[in-house]
């Protein structure tokens, strides 16, 4: 009887602790170690980053980076956090105006000639809900790498003609001056805001072998 209770306790303990463990932070190593994590390759046509910055202290100006590339991992049963290694090309900036695109690609902003890509690599994650994670990772922009916090949700898992697809939506806010992009903040004062809100919408193909 005593042995039976001990066995029951040993079996029950992990089960009862499971909900608590699910909310514990996962390091990138832990996430990578999740045996069922699927390798996901970004689908550039359906992956983009939208940025928002205030213009002249008045309205919000929106633009986007088209055709994001990179990879992610995520177990489809949500047993571990996703990991990301995503790249945006500065030449793919799109505001709907070629002149504005040119200005943004120039040295006063993204300086495409010297820093052609923007990269995000996740490092760790903390679950905040079902398919909802708070992640930390390195954002490299204009040659400066800084750790940022990203709010990431799995937007859905679907099936297309080429196989299984997973979508993510990630949001974060940065101060562009932190990356040396200061034009328009102090000089000319207030032309463009310092705070830039980013919304990243990603869709990727799940690798067939892993899926």
């Amino acid at each position: 009887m005593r042995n039976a209770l001990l066995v029951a306790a040993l079996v029950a303990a992990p089960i009862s602790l499971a909900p608590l463990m699910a909310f514990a932070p996962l390091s990138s190593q832990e996430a990578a170690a999740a045996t069922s994590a699927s390798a996901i390759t970004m689908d550039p046509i359906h992956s983009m980053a939208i940025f928002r910055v205030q213009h002249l202290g008045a309205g919000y100006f929106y633009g986007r980076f088209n055709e994001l590339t990179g990879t992610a991992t995520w177990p489809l049963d949500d047993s571990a956090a996703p990991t990301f290694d995503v790249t945006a090309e500065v030449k793919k900036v799109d505001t709907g105006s070629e002149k504005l695109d040119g200005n943004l690609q120039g040295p006063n902003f993204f300086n495409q000639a010297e820093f052609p890509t923007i990269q995000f690599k996740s490092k760790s994650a903390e679950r905040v809900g079902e398919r909802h994670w708070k992640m930390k990772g390195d954002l490299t922009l204009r040659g400066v790498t800084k750790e940022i916090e990203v709010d990431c949700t799995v937007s859905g898992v679907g099936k297309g003609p080429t196989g299984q697809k997973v979508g993510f939506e990630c949001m974060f806010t940065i101060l562009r001056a932190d990356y040396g992009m200061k034009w328009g903040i102090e000089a000319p004062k207030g032309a463009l805001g310092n705070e830039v809100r980013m919304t990243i919408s990603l869709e990727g193909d799940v690798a067939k072998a892993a899926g």
Partner: protein
Amino acid sequence: MDGVVGYILSVVVIPALVAAAVASIALVTPLRRRAWAVECFPAMAVALAFLVSFTNELGWTAVARQVITIEGDDAPFERWHRLGLAALMLMVGAVCIVAARMRMPRGGAPIVTMVALGIAGALAAQFVQFPQPTLLKQLGLAALVLAAGVALPLAGGAIYWIAWGAFGIVAALAGLGGFASLAVMCGAVSVASLLIAILAAIGGKFAKDAKPMEAAGAPLVVCAVMLALAARCGDAYDQSQTPDWLWWLVPLVPGFALIFTKQALRAPSIAAATFWRTLGAALVGVAILGAALAIDASKASGSDDADDPYADMYGG
């Protein structure tokens, strides 16, 4: 104060006024009788205008981080920031060139200018590299410095009037190419050159035994190097459709003073000769600007921006 007005004051007007103040030390004082002062102060002032504009726009750290490590400074090094350091070096160089020229025996001064121009071209090619540098591009930069140095003497006494126009063209092309910072910095040099030209004309009229302005020595080297560097920089980061050859032509604009050389030589006064020389360069400058605008307009007419009156107003 309005943000844009404050910005223009800070990066164009104040740098130009500071430069004019430095130049005026030689141009409208008894020093106007001294050849070394008339050569040195205005030449230094041209480089100073760029440097003050550069530091007002980006801070001294953008110059300092190129030579020393600054604690807590994690801003990226950008290749075009070398222009600020180059302006600082040219200020020092101007003093050295004038000192060397004054110590040379009669007829030896042009040799100093040629040697200085050669050294400046070599240093520019070695230390000022824009994105995707190649040996050919760096040799091209050195050649452009030398070519500008050959073209500038043709401007004669109109050197600062012509510099006003030439730097103005670089500013306009940079603005067209989406490079606001270079546009305002060259704008500051352009306005400074105009103020120097006016001060030189006033000082020359009223000072006894006033030394004339000459496109030789320090002003020649400073203007040639700065024009070549600014034009190559604008070309390297250009986001418009301005063809490379137009950018390469800008540093040679002073040479087109040659068009009206006959009229300049026959002119009854210095002012008239200056007018003819400036006119030759101005015609080519206007043609360059016209060509760049026409190319840009032809491109815009085929894009969605053509009907957007606010397309040029980003950030403004």
